């Protein structure tokens, strides 16, 4: 796919000499320690997550989980979490008619136990339900009980996906702009740039746990400094509830994330800037190229590889964003991201199966975005 552009492929076609083979062997030797460590720390946890996503495990029943296929992702039928293995039955609820049913997994017999004292039993005949006693048909009775279930059928999941994408796009694009700007400023050789560099790094250096709380404090609608400043400047006339107002919450979170992670981007871009060959800048200066054009046409293409990597890692992080959102806005739907969703399923709700499925889907979404980036950025992984 992304790997290996055309020229790389053609070159690979030449018969590799044993010299080249030796080089490759040595390359693998160089790779080995890293690969060993990485597969050690990543292999088991990742495999386990994927495996668990195919079971009905809960936090308390990790060892006795049953394989359920892709039901955690998407399934049609009686919902998975309605199944009680001990009783061998599904406990179903028909929200439309406000009725409770018990569906015997083995016999297919359906019991309406809305009134516990007077259960009504239905038998399954040719796919339809009939009164067990009277044999009268009960049309449509099962329909609402059979539904799409799994993470993919959860409205909240899709909300989380949308939130995450909005968050990632907004914060990463702002970060890129700001980060590149900061890097350029740092690279422009002004006095005290050492201090500036340190200053810019501060947000990154404060533990997220702390900085999220700190911003929560600063965002506070009555004793937070944000409102104080804005009120003082006359920008707003009354204090805003930054993190509480569903319309502001996302913006508020993005603002903090940009603050927090721009240094990451700025620093990487700065490093890239400083490794550029100086001579073609001289050429550009003599050619009378406007600095802005130099940036777009020379600098940017040259730092592109590093920038793309920085953006990829920032995007991965943004797509996995958890603690900041969690601390600032808790589980609010307006800002719930995929990670928050996954964690809610996994830890809060103890649904290890569904949580793992959500995590795996999250990885899938991230992978899609990454591949998209790589293609859009024309990153040729295999090329020199």
């Amino acid at each position, binding site marked *: 796919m992304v790997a290996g552009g055309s020229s790389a492929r053609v070159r690979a076609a030449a018969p590799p000499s044993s010299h080249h083979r030796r080089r490759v062997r040595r390359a693998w030797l160089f790779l080995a320690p890293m690969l060993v460590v990485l597969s050690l720390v990543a292999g088991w946890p990742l495999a386990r997550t994927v495996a668990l996503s195919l079971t009905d495990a809960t936090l308390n029943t990790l060892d006795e989980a049953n394989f359920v296929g892709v039901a955690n992702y998407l399934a049609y039928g009686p919902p998975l979490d309605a199944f009680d293995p001990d009783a061998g039955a599904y406990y179903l609820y028909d929200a439309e008619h406000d009725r409770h049913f018990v569906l015997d997994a083995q016999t297919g017999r359906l019991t309406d136990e809305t009134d516990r004292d007077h259960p009504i039993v239905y038998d399954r005949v040719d796919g339809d339900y009939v009164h067990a006693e009277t044999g009268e048909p009960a049309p449509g009775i099962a329909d609402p009980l059979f539904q799409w279930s799994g993470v993919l059928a959860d409205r909240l999941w899709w909300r989380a996906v949308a939130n995450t994408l909005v968050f990632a796009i907004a914060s990463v694009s702002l970060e890129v702009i700001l980060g590149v700007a900061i890097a350029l400023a740092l690279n422009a050789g002004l006095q005290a740039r050492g201090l500036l560099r340190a200053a810019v790094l501060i947000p990154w250096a404060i533990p997220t746990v702390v900085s999220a709380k700190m911003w929560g404090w600063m965002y506070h609608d009555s004793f937070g400094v944000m409102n104080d400043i804005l009120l003082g400047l006359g920008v707003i006339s009354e204090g805003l509830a930054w993190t509480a107002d569903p319309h502001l919450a996302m913006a508020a979170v993005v603002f903090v994330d940009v603050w927090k992670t721009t240094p990451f981007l700025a620093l990487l871009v700065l490093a890239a800037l400083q490794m550029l060959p100086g001579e073609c800048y001289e050429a550009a200066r*003599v050619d*009378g190229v406007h600095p802005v054009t130099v940036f777009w046409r020379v600098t940017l293409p040259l730092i592109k590889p590093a920038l793309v990597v920085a953006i990829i890692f920032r995007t991965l992080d943004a797509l996995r964003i958890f603690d900041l959102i969690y601390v600032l806005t808790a589980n609010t739907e307006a800002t719930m991201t995929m990670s928050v969703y996954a964690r809610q399923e996994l830890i809060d709700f103890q649904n290890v199966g569904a949580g793992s499925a959500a995590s795996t889907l999250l990885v899938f979404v991230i992978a899609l975005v990454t591949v998209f980036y790589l293609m859009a950025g024309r990153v040729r992984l295999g090329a020199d």
Partner: protein
Amino acid sequence: MAGIVFDRVSKRFGTAEVIRNVDLDIAPGSFTVFVGPSGCGKSTLLRLIAGLEDITAGTLLIEGCPVNDVAPAKRGVAMVFQSYALYPHMSVYQNMAFGLSLAKTDRRETDRRVREAARILQMDHLLERKPKDLSGGQRQRVAIGRAITREPKVFLFDEPLSNLDAALRVQMRLEIAKLHRALGATMVYVTHDQVEAMTLAEQIVVLNAGAVEQVGAPLELYHRPQNRFVAGFIGSPQMNFLPGTLAAAGADGVAVALAGLASPVPAAVAPDGQAAGAAVSLGIRPEHIVVGDGVAAAGPHGRIALVERLGSDTLLHVATQAGHLVVAAGAATKARVGDTIRLGLPADACHVFAADGRALARRGATEA
């Protein structure tokens, strides 16, 4: 067209003074060649003109205006860098078109100029390559192409042909001369190639250790070097120098006594205040030494130590009693290593340099 004037310009890197007090006048539309030993400051001078280095002291004027503080972009110069300085991420075409596309030149016009330059530089087939896939000479041609597409007022060429083969170099040289005639732009050119310098230059500037040794038309430098440095630097193979003393100094010439020679060698130079007995050196170019039986017995003679046959020419390295001499004999010469030959030093081909290196004014010889 823009004249360039250096007014007591100096440049220091740290403590090293690389350009010392250079006064220089480059006429608008002229073709000036800088020559000088490696590291003498030629590239630095070009970089000063381009504005890539700050001037430590003195004033640089372009078109009569001091430009010490003018940004490179505003000086209207194009430069071919000794180290090429290509944009690594752009193809050859893009490298050459970059300056034009920025100047908002019409797309068709850009294309025309780039293709024209590529044709001149014989690299039509390379337009889509990236610099890293080019040979050294090809990269150099891209660097030249980039400058010529821009058609600026001043061209700065830093050894633009050094990585090209002889045939291509001759062609390129002619192209540059043609360009100069066509555009009338001021061109400043650094080269180590004597032929380039002699054929292209209207004015050659000889630099040494950051200072100007002599400025003049090519043949003037060849025939009337002002000092021993210039004499040795201009002309290839190099001028021979023999130590000696002034035996006689008259109005119609001097005579230089050389070691091991019975009679002093006459030279058609003015004594210029040097009295008889002063230590001098006698200079004579290899191509001016006369070889053969016909020469006076008074001249130096010696064993041939080395014969270098260049095809069109043959260089004889002769160890004479007066010192080591390189002689340019015709291609047809039969001389062999070990032969003893007799050399004639024609009086009007001789240069005499005072102990401080200053040349005594020559008489007869003029630029042909």
